[in-house]
C-alpha cells in the first residue's frame, strides 16, 4: 500500500506517527506529494494524507488511516476510542482550524487564538484528570492519543498556547511529543519551522466563520441528573436531620475587621474607579459587583473578610475634567466621589470601606515606598524628551495630549495608552500630537524624570509568580496577560509627571512634579485601609495570614500583577501581595460598546431611574458576567431572564412553597416523613449546593448562579409531580404526603434564600423575612443542606417576589438608552431596500410575538416535565418534546438578530 503525505499539512502528523504500527504486517510506501494534489480520483477537492490500499480502495480520512494501522497491529476497536475520534472530527477540528487560521494566516495572538480552542483543551484536560489515567483510553498509549496529539501538535508545540493550568493535558502532551515516532513525524511535516510550516496549506482553507468555537451563549446547557450512590443519599439525609444544631455560633461583628491568626483572612479589593467618570454597567460588573458577590459569599462562610474600594482621584484625567467643568480638581473629586458612592450604595455593594486616594495617608505610604525603592537603588533619574505646549507654557502629561496611535493608527489615542489596541504609548511617539487644552501642536523639549527599574526587579517578580500561580485561582486571562508581558521583558517605567494634582515627589528638583498615577493608584488600597484603621499593616504586611483577592477588568491586570508587586518587592517591607487575581473580559452593550459621549448604554446613575430594582440589575449582570469571554448586555435578554428565570422559575417555586404552608397548614411547617424519592431529592440538592461552593471558591460567579436556578428547577418539578394541592384534599396518607412535600419544598426555599444572598441581597432578606428564617441560618451557609425550618416553625406573610417586565416598558428603555442602533440601521435599510416588506416581518417579530412564544415554551416545558414525571409513554413524550424544541427554535428565530444587520451598518 502507498501512503501519500505532504509537508505542511497537519493531518500527516498522526498518520506518520501511526504508520510504524503496520510494520511487519504490510509494506507501506511513503510518497510525498504537494498539498494541492488530487490523489483520490473520486474526490473533487484535494485531500492529503491518503492511503491507497492494495485492493485499490482509498482511505482519505486521517483518523481512518491511523485506525487501519492500529487494526493491522491487532488492536480492537472500543467505544471510548470511537468517542474520542468522533469528538476530534466534529468538535476539536473546527475549533483548531479556526485557531490555526487566526494564528498563522491572520497573525493574531494570545486569547484571540486560544479563545476558540480553550473549551476543547479544557475538555481533554478534565477527562485526563478525572479518569486518572496517563492516556485517553487507559493505561497505554493508543489510537485516540495519536490522533489527538497529531491534531494538537502544531498549536501546542508553542508553549504560549499550552495553558499551564491544564496540567493533565500538559503532561500527556509532553509524554507523547517526546516519543520517537511522534518526533520524527513532527520533523517531517513541520520541518522545524513550527506552526509557520502550515502557512501555505492554511491560506487555501476557507476563513472560519466568526462564531465558530466562541459563540457567546447565555443559555444553560441541558441539565442532566447525576447518578447518586446510596452513601451519598444516606449522608445527605443525616446532615438534613441534624438541622439547626449543626450551625456553628455566629461570629460577632468586629469593627474594625482585622486578621486573626489561625483563621481564614480574606482581603478583597475592587479596582479603584476613576473619579471623573460615571461608571457604566460594564465597569460595575467588571469589578465592584463581582467583588461584592465574593465578599458576601466569604462572609457567609464565616471567613474573616474585609472588602475595600474607593475612587482613584489623582492624575491628568481629573485635571482635564476640572478645566472642562471650570472647577478645581478637589471640587471635581468631591463632586464625583459622592456620585460614585451613591451608585454603589444603590446597587447594594457591601464595602467595609469606600475611600478615596486624595488623603494624607496616600502621600505618606506612597512616599515611604518610594524612599525604600530609592534607597535600594531601584529608582534612577533621566532626562526625557517631552512634549511641551508653548501656548499653555507647560509640559504635556499623558492625557493632555492626543494623537494617532503609532501601533494601530487609531485617531484618538491618548498620550499614555491607546483605547483601541490597548497598548501603552510614550507620548512623544504619537503621530500628529495635539494639546488637549488649546489644540495647538506641542514641541519636544527635555526635562528630568524618575524611573522605576523594572528590569532589575524582574527576577524577584518571576520568583514570586512561580510561588503564587500554581494552585491559585488567577483567571486564565490574567495569567496570560502577565506571562506575555514577562515574555517581552519588562522595561524601566517613568513614575513622575508634570502635574500639580498628585502625590508630591519627595526629592529635590522635583517640586513641580508628582507621582504618575499608575505608580501610586494601586497604593490606594493600602492608604484606604489606613484611613479605616491605624492597624492597616496587619492586613497589608501580613502575607502569611492574609489571602488577597483583587477584582478588575482585564485592562487593569498589568498594574496589579507586575507594577505594584515590583514596587512592593523592591521596597522589601513584607507587603501582602495578590494571591488570586480575578479579571473579567469586557461587557458590550447590545451590539456595540458603551459610550458616554454617544450616550449609548446604561450608566450607573441611570439604572435607578429605570424602575427596575437593583437586585434585578445585579442578577442579570451576574448572569451574563463576562467570565472567560466577552458578553453583551441585551434588553430583550434582560426581559427574558427576568420573566423566565426569576419570575417563572425561582420566584414561582419559592412563592408556591410558602403559600402551601400558609394556605394548607395555617402557616406552620408540617411534619415531614421522607420517602426514598424525597431522600434522593435531598441528595440532589446537596450535590448542587456543593457544586455551588466549589464554583464560588474558584470565583466562578456566573456558573455558581446557575446552581441556584437548577435547585429551584428541581423544586418546581418536585411540587409539580407530587401535587400537594390535590393531596391535601385526599385521605389521611395523602394529607401526610402533602405535608412532607410542602415541608421539604419550603426548606429548599430557605436554602435558596441563603445561596441567593451574595447575588440578590434584598430579595434574599425578603424571603427570609417571609419565612421567618432563624437568624443564624440566614448568615451562615454550610456545605450540607440542613432542615432549617423544622415541623411546627411558624412562617410570616408570603407575597410574590418578582414583577413581570413588560415589552413596551423594555422597548421604551431600549430607545431611551440608545440601544436603537440596530433599528436605526434597519430603517435605513428599509428605505433603500427593494423589498421593504421582508425587512418589516423581521423587525415586527419583536415584542409581542416573543412574549407569546416565551409563554408557550414555558407551558409546553411544564407539560413535558409532567409527562416525564408520570413516566408517560415514550412516543407521547417524544412528540411533546419535539413540539417544545420546535417552539424553542421559533423563539430563537424571533429573538435572533436579523442576518442583514452587519451589512446595514456599513451604510452608516
Amino acid at each position: 500500500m502507498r501512503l501519500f503525505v505532504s509537508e505542511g499539512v497537519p493531518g500527516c502528523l498522526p498518520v506518520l506517527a501511526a504508520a510504524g504500527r503496520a510494520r511487519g504486517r504490510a509494506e507501506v510506501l511513503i510518497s510525498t506529494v504537494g498539498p494541492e494534489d488530487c490523489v483520490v480520483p473520486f474526490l473533487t477537492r484535494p485531500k492529503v494524507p491518503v492511503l491507497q490500499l492494495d485492493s485499490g480502495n482509498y482511505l482519505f480520512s486521517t483518523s481512518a488511516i491511523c485506525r487501519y494501522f492500529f487494526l493491522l497491529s491487532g488492536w480492537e476497536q472500543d467505544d471510548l476510542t470511537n468517542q474520542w475520534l468522533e469528538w476530534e472530527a466534529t468538535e476539536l477540528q473546527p475549533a483548531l482550524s479556526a485557531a490555526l487560521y487566526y494564528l498563522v494566516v491572520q497573525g493574531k495572538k494570545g486569547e484571540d487564538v486560544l479563545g476558540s480552542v480553550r473549551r476543547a483543551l479544557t475538555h481533554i484536560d478534565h477527562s485526563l484528570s478525572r479518569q486518572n489515567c496517563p492516556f485517553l483510553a487507559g493505561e497505554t498509549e493508543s489510537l485516540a492519543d495519536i490522533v489527538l496529539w497529531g491534531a494538537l501538535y502544531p498549536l501546542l508545540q508553542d508553549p504560549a498556547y499550552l495553558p499551564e493550568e491544564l496540567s493533565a493535558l500538559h503532561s500527556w502532551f509532553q509524554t507523547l511529543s517526546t516519543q520517537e515516532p511522534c518526533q520524527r513525524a513532527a520533523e517531517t511535516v513541520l520541518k522545524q519551522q513550527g506552526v509557520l510550516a502550515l502557512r501555505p496549506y492554511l491560506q487555501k482553507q476557507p476563513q472560519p466563520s466568526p462564531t465558530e468555537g466562541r459563540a457567546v451563549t447565555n443559555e444553560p446547557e441541558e441539565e442532566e441528573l447525576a447518578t447518586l450512590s446510596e452513601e451519598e443519599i444516606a449522608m445527605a439525609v443525616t446532615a438534613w436531620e441534624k438541622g439547626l444544631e449543626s450551625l456553628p455560633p455566629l461570629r460577632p461583628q468586629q469593627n474594625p475587621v482585622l486578621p486573626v491568626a489561625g483563621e481564614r483572612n480574606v482581603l478583597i479589593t475592587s479596582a479603584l474607579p476613576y473619579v471623573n467618570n460615571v461608571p457604566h454597567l460594564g465597569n460595575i460588573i467588571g469589578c465592584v459587583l463581582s467583588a461584592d458577590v465574593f465578599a458576601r459569599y466569604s462572609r457567609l462562610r464565616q471567613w474573616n473578610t474585609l472588602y475595600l474600594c474607593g475612587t482613584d482621584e489623582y492624575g491628568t484625567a481629573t485635571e482635564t475634567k476640572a478645566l472642562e467643568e471650570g472647577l478645581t480638581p478637589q471640587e471635581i473629586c468631591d463632586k464625583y466621589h459622592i456620585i460614585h458612592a451613591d451608585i454603589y450604595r444603590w446597587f447594594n455593594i457591601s464595602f467595609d470601606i469606600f475611600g478615596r486616594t486624595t488623603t494624607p495617608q496616600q502621600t505618606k505610604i506612597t512616599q515611604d515606598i518610594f524612599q525604600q525603592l530609592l534607597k535600594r537603588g531601584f529608582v534612577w533619574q533621566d532626562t526625557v524628551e517631552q512634549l511641551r505646549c508653548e501656548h499653555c507654557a507647560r509640559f504635556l502629561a499623558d492625557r493632555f495630549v492626543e494623537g494617532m496611535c503609532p501601533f494601530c493608527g487609531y485617531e484618538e489615542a491618548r498620550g499614555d495608552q491607546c483605547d483601541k489596541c490597548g497598548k501603552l504609548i510614550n507620548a512623544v511617539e504619537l503621530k500628529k500630537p495635539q494639546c488637549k487644552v488649546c489644540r495647538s501642536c506641542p514641541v519636544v523639549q527635555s526635562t528630568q524624570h524618575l524611573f522605576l527599574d523594572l528590569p532589575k526587579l524582574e527576577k524577584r517578580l518571576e520568583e514570586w509568580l512561580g510561588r503564587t500561580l500554581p494552585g491559585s485561582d488567577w483567571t486564565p486571562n490574567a495569567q496570560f496577560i502577565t506571562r506575555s508581558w514577562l515574555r517581552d521583558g519588562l522595561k524601566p517605567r517613568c513614575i513622575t509627571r508634570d502635574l500639580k494634582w498628585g502625590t508630591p515627589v519627595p526629592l529635590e528638583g522635583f517640586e513641580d512634579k508628582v507621582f504618575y498615577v499608575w505608580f501610586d493608584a494601586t497604593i490606594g488600597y493600602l492608604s484606604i485601609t489606613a484611613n479605616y484603621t491605624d492597624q492597616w499593616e496587619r492586613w497589608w504586611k501580613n502575607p502569611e495570614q492574609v489571602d488577597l483577592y483583587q477584582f478588575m477588568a482585564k485592562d487593569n491586570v498589568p498594574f496589579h500583577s507586575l507594577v505594584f508587586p515590583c514596587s512592593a518587592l523592591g521596597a522589601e517591607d513584607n507587603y501582602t501581595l495578590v494571591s488570586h487575581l480575578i479579571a473579567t473580559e469586557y461587557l458590550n452593550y447590545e451590539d456595540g460598546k458603551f459610550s458616554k459621549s454617544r450616550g449609548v448604554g446604561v450608566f450607573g446613575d441611570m439604572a435607578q431611574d429605570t424602575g427596575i430594582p437593583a437586585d434585578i440589575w445585579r442578577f442579570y449582570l451576574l448572569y451574563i458576567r463576562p467570565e472567560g469571554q466577552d458578553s453583551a448586555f441585551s434588553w430583550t435578554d434582560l426581559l427574558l431572564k427576568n420573566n423566565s428565570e426569576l419570575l417563572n422559575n425561582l420566584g414561582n417555586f419559592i412563592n408556591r412553597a410558602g403559600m402551601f404552608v400558609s394556605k394548607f397548614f395555617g402557616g406552620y411547617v408540617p411534619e415531614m416523613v421522607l420517602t426514598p424519592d424525597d431522600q434522593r431529592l435531598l441528595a440532589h440538592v446537596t450535590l448542587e449546593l456543593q457544586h455551588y461552593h466549589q464554583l464560588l471558591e474558584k470565583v466562578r460567579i456566573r456558573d455558581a448562579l446557575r446552581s441556584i436556578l437548577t435547585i429551584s428547577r428541581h423544586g418546581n418539578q418536585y411540587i409539580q409531580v407530587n401535587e400537594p394541592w390535590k393531596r391535601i384534599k385526599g385521605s389521611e396518607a395523602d394529607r401526610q404526603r402533602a405535608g412532607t412535600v410542602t415541608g421539604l419544598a419550603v426548606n429548599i426555599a430557605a436554602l435558596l434564600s441563603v445561596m441567593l444572598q451574595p447575588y440578590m441581597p434584598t430579595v434574599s432578606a425578603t424571603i427570609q423575612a417571609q419565612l421567618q428564617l432563624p437568624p443564624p441560618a440566614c448568615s451562615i451557609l454550610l456545605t450540607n443542606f440542613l432542615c432549617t425550618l423544622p415541623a411546627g416553625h411558624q412562617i410570616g406573610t408570603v407575597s410574590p417576589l418578582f414583577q413581570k417586565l413588560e415589552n413596551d416598558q423594555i422597548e421604551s428603555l431600549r430607545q431611551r438608552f440608545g440601544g436603537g442602533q440596530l433599528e436605526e440601521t434597519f430603517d435605513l435599510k428599509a428605505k433603500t431596500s427593494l423589498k421593504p416588506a421582508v425587512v418589516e416581518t423581521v423587525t415586527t417579530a419583536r415584542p409581542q410575538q416573543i412574549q407569546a412564544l416565551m409563554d408557550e415554551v414555558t407551558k409546553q416545558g411544564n407539560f413535558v416535565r409532567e409527562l416525564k414525571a408520570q413516566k408517560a409513554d415514550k412516543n407521547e413524550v417524544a412528540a411533546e418534546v419535539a413540539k417544545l424544541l420546535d417552539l424553542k427554535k421559533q423563539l430563537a428565530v424571533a429573538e435572533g438578530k436579523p442576518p442583514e444587520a452587519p451589512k446595514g451598518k456599513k451604510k452608516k
Partner: protein
Amino acid sequence: MAAAAELSLLEKSLGLSKGNKYSAQGERQIPVLQTNNGPSLTGLTTIAAHLVKQANKEYLLGSTAEEKAIVQQWLEYRVTQVDGHSSKNDIRTLLKDLNSYLEDKVYLTGYNFTLADILLYYGLHRFIVDLTVQEKEKYLNVSRWFCHIQHYPGIRQHLSSVVFIKNRLYTNSH
C-alpha cells in the same frame, strides 16, 4: 431528523428492544446515551457502533481491518460532511463525489452491507427527498445505492419512500 430519533430508528432496524434513553448536549444537540454498566457515550456514530455490538451484529462494522477502517471513514464523513454543510453547493459536491465513488460499488464497503450504509442513508434522506428527477438521474449511482438501501428490510420505517424513475429521461445530460 434529530439524532435521538435516528438512533431509535437504528435500534428498531437492528431488532433491539427499546429501552435506551438519549439526552441531547449543547447547541448542536449531540446525542448522549446513559449506559447501564459504565459511563455515558456521546456522539451519533459512537452510540450507533455501540448499539450494533449490543445487537450482536458486529459484522455491520466490517469484517476485515480494511472494511472496519472504511466503515469508520464513512461514518466520520456522515457526521462531518453530510451534517456539517447545508449550502446547496456543498451538497452538490458531496453528491458528485459520492456518485463517482459508488460507480463500481454496491455498498459503501464494496460488497457488504454495513452500518455506514444505514447512517449515510439516514443522513442523506433529507437531501435526496428534495432532488429533482433530473438531479437523481445525474447522480445515478447514488440513486441506485439509495433506492437499494431504502428497500433493505427494516431500514426505512416511517421515513418517506423516495421515488426513482427507472427509465432515463434526460439521456444527454449524463
